[in-house]
């Protein structure tokens, strides 16, 4: 039994070395009032649990040490005591009530989404997030940007490995932001540890939650509900900035739209479209259809040699633009610009030995966008 004690003391000796307040081993305190309350609650229960363990294991080790046969201990026949059993039913109940009071309070507060300063709709897609600033005409997708070379260990990993996106969610500090979570396909969960906010995004339903960030900064999180193949690769990056900066950002976002429109009026050549298309394809499509276009049949069809990619242009554009409900193929009409759509369709028709030879012009896609 000494051995047992020794092992445990080694384990416990490890604790101070791994300082409990550090981010790496403990929950973050976060940057909102809710997250601070949650953190405090976490520490309270943690210490209560430690105290319970010390008492229970203490008595146990004490008897293991003293009441062993090898030390000549004889067994005493007592095996029932109603009063002591009632005692150890009541004491834990009281401990639980002590924990439940602050827990209930924090819970009720975290459910109060009323009187928000702004609303953002967050929609999960198989393997990206969409942020729509309600009432602002700002609506964009946010996709992981970690290059596949880093993932496949062909390049060194950068410090934000797997936690970087093209378009972070930009929000002002000190404002009560209400989130409306939903999903386009399967269940996802939007989770940012620093906000102590995790909520499932459920297709067909909306979940509400709120946050009010106290400190500017960049906070990172990940999808927290298994949502298919690339569940591990749909991070969340949220940039909290002072209000002026936020307003400036909003304006910039809005002007982006016009720039896109003018780009699609340009005359594009096959080479330009193919080059652009390859980029877009690798960013938006290769997760399912694979970089070489062979897909992962039967769930994700191959595009190499596919009847649609080789067939009429209209059908091809249609499935890319509108997607196919009930499958992983979501409509890209809203996600990509006209240029990107034209480029990716052109690319698919002419890459990996698909030699249709025709091109799709951004202007044509623009018509389809206008028509919708």
């Amino acid at each position, binding site marked *: 039994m000494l*051995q047992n004690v020794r*092992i445990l003391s080694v384990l416990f000796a490890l604790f101070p070395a*791994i300082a409990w307040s550090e981010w790496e081993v403990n*929950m*973050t305190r976060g940057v909102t009032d809710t997250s601070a309350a*949650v953190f405090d*609650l*976490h520490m309270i*229960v943690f210490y209560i649990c430690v105290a*319970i363990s010390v008492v*229970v294991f203490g008595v*146990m080790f004490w*008897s*293991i040490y003293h*009441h*062993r046969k090898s030390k000549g*201990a004889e*067994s*005493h*026949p*007592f*095996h*029932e005591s109603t009063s002591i*059993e009632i005692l*150890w039913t009541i004491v*834990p109940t009281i401990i639980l009530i002590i*924990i*439940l009071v602050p*827990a*209930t309070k*924090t*819970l009720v507060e975290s*459910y109060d989404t009323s009187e928000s300063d702004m609303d953002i709709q967050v929609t999960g897609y198989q393997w990206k997030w969409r942020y729509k600033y309600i009432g602002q005409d700002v609506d964009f997708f946010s996709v992981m940007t970690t290059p596949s070379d880093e993932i496949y*260990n062909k390049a060194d*990993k950068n*410090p934000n490995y*797997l936690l970087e996106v093209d378009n972070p969610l930009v929000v002002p500090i000190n404002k009560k932001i209400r989130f409306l*979570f939903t999903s386009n*396909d*399967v*269940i996802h969960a939007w989770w940012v540890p620093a906000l102590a*906010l995790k*909520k*499932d995004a*459920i297709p*067909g*339903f909306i979940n509400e939650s709120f946050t009010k960030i106290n400190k500017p900064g960049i906070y990172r999180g990940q999808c*927290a509900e*298994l*949502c*298919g*193949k*690339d569940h*591990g*690769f749909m991070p969340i990056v949220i940039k909290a900035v002072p209000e002026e900066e936020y307003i400036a950002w909003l304006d910039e976002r809005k002007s982006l739209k016009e720039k896109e429109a003018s780009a699609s009026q340009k005359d594009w050549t096959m080479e330009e479209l193919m080059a652009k298309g390859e980029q877009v394809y690798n960013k938006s499509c290769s997760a399912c259809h694979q970089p070489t276009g062979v897909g*992962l*049949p*039967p*769930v994700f069809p191959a595009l190499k040699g596919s009847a649609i990619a080789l067939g009429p242009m209209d059908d091809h554009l249609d499935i890319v633009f509108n997607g196919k409900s009930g*499958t992983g193929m979501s409509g890209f009409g809203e996600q990509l610009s006209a240029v990107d759509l034209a480029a990716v369709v052109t690319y698919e028709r002419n890459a990996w030995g698909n030699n249709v030879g025709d091109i799709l012009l951004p202007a044509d896609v623009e018509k389809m966008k206008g028509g919708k």
Partner: protein
Amino acid sequence: MTTQVADVEHGHENGHGPATGITRWLFTTNHKDIGTMYLIFSLVMLFIGGSMAFVIRAELFQPGLQLVEPAFFNQMITMHGLIMVFGAVMPAFVGLANWMIPMMIGAPDMALPRLNNLSFWILPFAFTMMMSTLFMDGGGPNFGWTFYAPLSTTYAPPSTTFFILAIHMMGASSIMGAINVVVTIVNMRAPGMTYMKMPMFCWTWLITAFLLIAVMPVLAGVVTMMLMDIHFGTSFFDAGGGGDPVLFQHVFWFFGHPEVYIMILPSFGVVSEVIPTFARKKLFGYHSMVYAIVAIAVLSFVVWAHHMFTVGMPLAGEIFFMYTTMLIAVPTGVKIFNWVSTMFRGSMTFETPMLYAIAFVILFTIGGLSGIMLALAPVDFVYHDTYFVVAHFHYVLVPGAIFGIFAAVYYWLPKWSGKMYDESLAKFHFWVSFIGLNLTFFPMHFVGLAGMPRRIPDYPLQFADFNMIVSIGAFMFGTSQLIFVYVLIKTLRSGEKAPQRPWEGAEGLEWTVPSPAPYHTFATPPKVD
């Protein structure tokens, strides 16, 4: 609970011994044969499921994708969870029930011997079907052992159909097995063996069997609805037709939560047998132990949504499920305190079963306490779906369920085989397992709190160090199970002859028959007073 046996007569009225050849196993109606088959099956499954854990841990050894693709990784975690739960733990418990319950209550066999054989033989077929999905087009199930819709319906690989039917088969097997246990305990006790004299293992199994009969049909129901959503266009889990994906989770967890107690109660029973034996002292508070099990079972039906704190339930629901979940700590605490009190002022020795039982009490308590932390809804918003949860449930499942099984095997192996195992080798197995296990699952708490989601094949860099420790621990723990197999083989081949009652403090009817227990034990019921 002194059980004195007035009349131990081993008449073999229908005196057939075991048949010879393969038909002994295929056609058997003998509870001991069937128990053996269950135990062997579960050991094989433990190794298959464990090999999948090896794949998981090898991939997670370092950041980046090295060994397997994410699609396959998801199949591995799903199969690992399913095989461990339905293939390793549950059949092992049924195996123990088969061996021990008739012997403990003084019955000639299980109440319905042919049904018993059917319950077993469904399993190899069911697992053949389930594992064959891995080789089908599109791969096996990849949606986690909790298979949330619509990932498991609309977006699932085609092999899901076979997964569903395999679950149906396992469910049927479990229900039949459970009915057999209930009927045996209720109807076959020897004269004088009142309920309140029954060994604690039988009590825990009686309640477990009740839970099984109550919730396995619900699991069958939910997979049936999945099947209909997939093949017949119904919309149970599709908001477009008025259903709700969250409805799936409610029904699943109505099964799922009692299921986790199904995986722990029989271990409670084993520990309640082992500790008194090696403390040479009666189990403390027998009555409150029984009431505690009943309370846990009853409460287990009203806590299910603590797995769903983040799905956006109405506030009243969150509060209700938070409170009921916390309440379970009270009866569980009674059990822990009673075990400690049993040791207190006993005269303890530390043979291998006792080591496992003590480790069980410690490590299960750690797992239970992290369960209490998870039960706090607002904090679970942070813990949910992180490695903190993975740490919690491995602490209750591996040193809980699995150590309970190890304790039982070492405790009763002399009775089953008539041979003693090698004590020092067994202790070696214990210590390597104990260290390996803590090395594996303790650091998971840290990465979980630091923010590592579960079910991911690759992770951000700040989790790298701990994951490496976890993987090393996992290889150590897994490999140490080869020692276990070696101990078993060595016992059967060259173990010393075991006496009728190898443990000084052991009480109960099973120790009143010779070792190995005769093929038919109590053809005439013993008298118990």
